[in-house]
């Protein structure tokens, strides 16, 4: 088999190359020729095509994402910002935290179990490659209609895959989201978040410095998985009788990843590593070009040394393979043996595949022939950047005008109808108990989980001596983003921020996973630009920098895109996790307050969706100053021990918030609906910036002064009791009652009936 090498690329420069089949545009191909001063070899073409893909180069999103860098708020907690594998935040006492969320949407539709499993695996490697020990995962998920015949397959596979991988790795699952909407039918969203902790001195970066240092590839062997389009190159054009089309599905090996975590942390802590990089999308191409261009700028690789699972792989395929559970480290020559010893201890194969040099070039040899000779930056960072056309979709006006007024959408107007609505809403798949899913995940492993489902945020104790800890939440109501992507992204951020503050943790940093349709659709691009701008503006206002994230485009079937879904993750810090506020109201006689203002805001609400299948109008208004004031009350209230419970108000409004608190506590309460508001609006409006808090009598004064000090409206609405009933009084002149048992059995039956 003859290999296309640099010499032959120079010698015969005009052969036809399948750049279009690899997803490169003619002008991108011309640009590569210009960079190299000749045609690329087949291996170079393969490298550029994957590294310049949307997934790796952010070519459509880059111009917008820049806002996260240009609108950074003054916040001195950011130790490593956007651009590295994951951002790093200072949480005090010498501790640092890194967290990031990433999508694995399309693979999870094709092969739900493995797609979701490898999604978890990928984000965990990003966290390890910063030098951190992964300590928790979260899984924001979105599926098509609950009763669609294909949803069962997708839900069961994805949930089992996330559990199968995360449980086996020993990472507690501390939260996530579970949302059903027909817009995700052929495009389920699997976003996976991982948090890691480390001491400041353990932070590591992906760069290949030190001329003469060895480049070591370790972990799983390289196989033919996840190669996708590159097989066109390898099998059809360059070698007609070559291997069959490679599988594009990757299979995960969580056991190998667990060993990889332990092995990597051991070599890092032993001071054996100069630079480190995980292998994810674009495999060795990405790892070598990124390491080289972030370091001294030169690297030579002997590609034939890579350990293979399948000996028939071509060099192009090896460069592109997305085989899971691999890492790449840069190690000083005199430390290579020690490094390999640690690998042996953990039963991990490792091999020196390259060397750092000062050539300024990334060169790759295959059995003595040079097959790649490129400037590494041109591969890793100088990909094309597009200013894609944007246009506000013409249907936006009609959608926003279609407000859910009482004339358009019938509302309950009697106590009997309110009770009927209450039971229907409890059984809505988006509001029902998530236990069927979360009980498939280990939330206890590592013994530091302070809060997990169904709490508003996950909370992990970082320091077992001082009790210092972190809280993380992810949120997005994509229907709000569909009604107004700018405000929708801000509302998602505000909800996530609030969920962290509810627990008593102070929000510090933001990550995001921006799931959208095709960037080649001007309407989608407009939604994207609006969402990014909304988020960046909000982060600037609230003083929380974006430390990283991920963009997933092309989530659409034919012309129909998913709802724009900017999932926002917020990380907060708490000085002592013993001070956390949970959502469980524990003590009879304590007072229940609603903080914030409830308006007639039902556009995009769960009620409009579940009862009427309606999506129209303008999403709830958001005043970030109000949000910030509310957060201060919640954080201060936790520190001072004023609050005995607190819970966020979002999907399903106050009715849902009270129900969730009652179910958590297995204890009833009586809520008197204030006279100045319509009972239906009080119960199901989804106005922003609200929380339910519970205080013992001797702290009511303290709560009042906290709230007035921050300008937060507090309304006492009732008290916790010893009963097993939730009672709403003042509902159109009557009381509406539901027993906890009835609420629980209704809520808990929904998911098992659909998917069990």
């Amino acid at each position, binding site marked *: 088999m003859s290999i296309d090498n640099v010499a032959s690329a120079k010698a015969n420069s005009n052969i036809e190359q399948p750049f279009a089949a690899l997803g490169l545009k003619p002008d991108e191909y011309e640009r590569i020729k210009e960079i190299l001063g000749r045609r690329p070899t087949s291996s170079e073409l393969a490298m550029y095509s994957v590294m310049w893909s949307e997934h790796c180069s952010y070519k459509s999103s880059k111009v917008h994402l820049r806002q996260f860098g240009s609108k950074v708020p003054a916040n001195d907690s950011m130790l490593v910002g956007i651009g590295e594998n994951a951002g790093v935040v200072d949480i005090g006492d010498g501790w640092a935290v890194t967290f990031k969320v990433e999508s694995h949407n399309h693979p999870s539709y094709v092969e739900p179990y493995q797609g979701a499993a490898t999604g978890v695996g990928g984000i965990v490697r990003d966290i390890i490659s910063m030098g951190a020990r992964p300590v928790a995962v979260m899984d924001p998920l979105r599926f098509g209609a609950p009763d669609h015949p294909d949803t069962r397959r997708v839900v069961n596979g994805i949930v*089992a895959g996330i*559990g*199968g991988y995360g*449980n*086996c*790795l*020993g990472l507690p699952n501390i939260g996530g989201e579970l949302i059903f909407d027909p817009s995700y039918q052929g495009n389920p969203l699997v976003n996976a978040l991982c948090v890691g902790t480390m001491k400041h001195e353990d932070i590591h970066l992906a760069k290949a410095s030190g001329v003469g240092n060895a480049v070591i590839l370790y972990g799983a062997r390289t196989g033919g998985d996840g190669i996708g389009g590159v097989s066109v190159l390898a099998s059809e054009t360059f070698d007609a009788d070559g291997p069959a089309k490679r599988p594009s599905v990757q299979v995960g*090996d*969580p*056991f*190998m990843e*667990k*060993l990889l975590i332990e092995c990597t942390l051991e070599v890092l802590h032993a001071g054996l590593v100069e630079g480190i990089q995980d292998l994810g999308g674009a495999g060795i191409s990405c790892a070598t070009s990124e390491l080289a261009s972030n370091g001294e700028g030169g690297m030579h690789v002997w590609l034939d040394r890579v350990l293979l699972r399948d000996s028939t792989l071509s060099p192009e395929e090896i460069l592109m393979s997305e085989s899971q559970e691999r890492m790449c480290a840069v190690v000083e020559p005199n430390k290579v043996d020690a490094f390999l010893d640690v690998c042996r201890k*953990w*039963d991990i194969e490792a091999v020196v595949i390259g060397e750092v040099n000062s050539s300024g070039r990334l060169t790759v040899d295959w059995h003595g022939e040079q097959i790649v000779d490129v400037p590494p930056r041109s591969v890793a960072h100088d990909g094309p950047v597009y200013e894609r056309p944007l246009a506000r979709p013409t249907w936006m006006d009609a959608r926003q005008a279609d407000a859910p007024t009482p004339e358009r959408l019938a509302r309950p107007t009697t106590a009997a109808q309110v009770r009927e609505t209450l039971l229907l809403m409890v059984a809505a798949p988006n509001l029902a108990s998530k236990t069927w899913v*979360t*009980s*498939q*995940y*280990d*939330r*206890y*492993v*590592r*013994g*530091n*989980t*302070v809060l997990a489902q169904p709490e508003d945020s996950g909370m992990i*104790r970082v320091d077992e001596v001082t009790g210092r800890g972190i809280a993380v939440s992810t949120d997005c109501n994509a229907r709000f983003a569909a009604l107004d992507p700018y405000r929708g992204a801000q509302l998602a951020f505000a909800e996530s921020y609030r969920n962290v503050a509810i627990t008593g943790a102070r929000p510090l940093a933001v990550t995001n996973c921006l799931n959208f349709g095709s960037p080649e659709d001007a309407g989608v691009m407009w939604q994207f630009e609006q969402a990014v701008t909304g988020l960046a503006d909000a982060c600037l206002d609230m003083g929380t920098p974006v430390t990283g994230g991920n963009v997933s485009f092309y989530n659409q079937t034919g012309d129909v895109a998913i709802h724009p879904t900017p999932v926002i993750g917020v990380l907060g810090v708490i000085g002592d*996790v*013993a001070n956390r506020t949970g959502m469980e109201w524990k003590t009879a006689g304590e007072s229940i307050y609603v903080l914030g203002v409830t308006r007639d805001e039902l556009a995009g609400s769960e009620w409009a969706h579940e009862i009427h299948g309606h999506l129209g109008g303008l999403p709830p208004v958001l005043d970030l100053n109000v949000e910030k004031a509310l957060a201060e009350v919640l954080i201060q209230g936790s520190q001072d021990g004023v609050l005995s419970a607190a819970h966020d108000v979002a999907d399903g409004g106050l009715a849902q918030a009270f129900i969730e608190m009652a179910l958590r506590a297995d204890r009833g309460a009586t809520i008197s609906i204030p006279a100045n508001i319509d009972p239906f609006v009080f119960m199901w409006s989804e106005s922003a910036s609200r929380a339910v808090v519970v205080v013992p009598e001797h702290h009511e004064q303290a709560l009042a002064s906290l709230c007035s000090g921050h300008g937060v409206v507090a309304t006492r609405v009732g008290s916790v009791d010893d009963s097993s009933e939730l009672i709403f009084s003042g509902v159109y002149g009557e009381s509406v009652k539901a027993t906890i048992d009835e609420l629980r059995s209704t809520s808990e039956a929904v998911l098992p009936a659909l998917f*069990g």
Partner: protein
Amino acid sequence: MSSRIGVVTFPGSLDDRDAIRAVTLAGAEAVSLWHADATLQGVDAVVLPGGFSYGDYLRCGAIARFAPVMEPLIKAARDGMPVLGICNGFQILCESHLLPGALTRNDHLHFICRDQRLQITNTTSAWTSNFDMNQEIVVPLKNGEGGFVADERTLDQLEGEGRVIARYLEVNPNGSRRDIAGICNEAGNVVGLMPHPEHAVEALTGPTVDGLGFFTSVLKSLVDNGKVLA
């Protein structure tokens, strides 16, 4: 001199840290043992922790059972040293034939993580002597293959000899025969338990602190048996 309790780490062990924390909170000195070392470093008792040794590939515990550390451990267990196998550790003890029966795929086919109510039904084993007979406790349970099976004769024998040390209450979470959550060997020094007492040792992170009883029990039995001084 305080008791020294070993906690074995196999490739894929996950709850080893938690077991060490529990042992320490109970007042013993925890000693980390490595699967590839054929020594127990002179410890007084051993915990085989939960997790997915060797990824639970093949069968849970089947590969770990052949680890070098298991050789001295099996011998010491036969000579009366207290050994507690939690979840994956229980599976390893069954695969090693230190305990009868086997653990099979949960009957509902899902991994399950829940706060589980248990009844303690033996107060003479090395790991349960600090509980009261029929005491009810709540500890986390998390497993994919936790259904205890054995033939009828073995089950009758276990029950007849009082060797069922804990049973599931309210919900049988995995289809275990006769609601069995844990058993011990004839001598009572080797105990296997599917639920995770090491996750119920601190109010902050566990549903209760009921799990501590298993670890304080072994300290007491070590003193009672004259293995360590009080």
